[in-house]
């Protein structure tokens, strides 16, 4: 398993004094633990997404409970459901409106590959229009599967070279 690069130098002898760490570790630690989702609920997967947000599964345990319906304030777009060609440009436009750094989860068979809808109206996978970081299988996936995807995304965010990316930008 990939482990998060979030080890910060901690020593009880210098408690209240100094903490030495890497900028990447600090930035990634902050980012991984508050991934605010943009809920792109398009079909029945959105119901499981709601369940993941409710008390039984409680996505707040992973710092992702703040579902932002404004793309400006969100970090990860969770595409939950069937992406039709009529909706696809809207999905992309909302993704464009999200501030970087941003990630995307394709939740369920439809968002990942078009699922059972091999027809004229359905986009065959949302990765044709936005870059996807984590795919979740299932029709619909259980909330645990979404939480697993979120943890995988956290691991991925934890290994990013955030500082050099920031300096490059």
């Amino acid at each position, binding site marked *: 398993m990939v482990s998060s690069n979030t080890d910060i130098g901690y020593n009880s002898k210098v408690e209240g004094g100094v903490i030495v760490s890497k900028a990447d570790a600090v930035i990634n630690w902050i980012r991984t633990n508050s991934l605010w989702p943009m809920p792109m609920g398009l079909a029945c997967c959105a119901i499981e997404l709601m369940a993941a947000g409710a008390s039984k599964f409680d996505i707040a345990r992973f710092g992702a409970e703040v579902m932002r319906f404004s793309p400006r304030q969100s970090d990860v777009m969770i595409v939950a459901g069937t992406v039709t*060609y009529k909706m696809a440009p809207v999905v992309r436009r909302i993704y464009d409106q999200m501030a970087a750094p941003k990630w995307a989860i394709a939740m369920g068979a439809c968002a990942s590959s078009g699922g059972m809808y*091999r027809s*004229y109206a359905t986009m065959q996978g949302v990765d044709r229009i936005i870059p996807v970081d984590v795919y979740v299988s299932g029709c619909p996936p259980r909330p645990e599967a979404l939480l697993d995807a979120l943890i995988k995304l956290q691991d991925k965010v934890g290994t990013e070279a955030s500082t050099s990316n920031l300096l490059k930008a």
Partner: protein
Amino acid sequence: MIAQELLAALQGVAPQTSERPSADCPAFNCPLDSLIPVLRALRDNHGYDMLVDATGLDNGVESSPRFTVLYHLLSTATHSYARIAADCADDETPLAPSAVELWPAAEWHERECFDLLGIKYENHPDLRRILMWDEYPHHPLRKDFPLAGHEEDLWDQEISDETGTKVISAPMMGGPFVAKSSKFENEREPRAKDESWNEKNPKPEGQSRK
């Protein structure tokens, strides 16, 4: 019994009205130009006060008349249904009168029928597509339209240019996918109808996409 009485009454409105084969409720064929008077008579004189469904039929590419419009009515007093069908004259750009003046509920039904079958309703207050996007050039429920669809540009040109993505015809891979009836659950899994080709084995040459 009801069918015979209704037929006699409707022939008073439009003499060419005839009975239509039906497995359930009374059904009638009527000429297109007397469709609205017939519907009005059913509503005002026979208590069919509710429009349950307005839809259309594509009888097949070779058929003429090719398109039929259908109206399903319900009498909320007697709980009986009736079905009225009228054939469209033109097989390429079918025209039909709109029933919105009789039942406002017909508006969205007729928009759907226009969207998917391409039947144009005259005197419809707002005849736009309801499911597909406005610029879509086809009518997907016509018999000559393949399930996979045709290649098109996305309706948003900016997004289309940015992502280089188009509307593609869906990979059928031996589909459409159907569930066979069986008492074993693993055999009821949806499978491709034509399993001779899939992602690994290409489709045999010389077969059309339809």
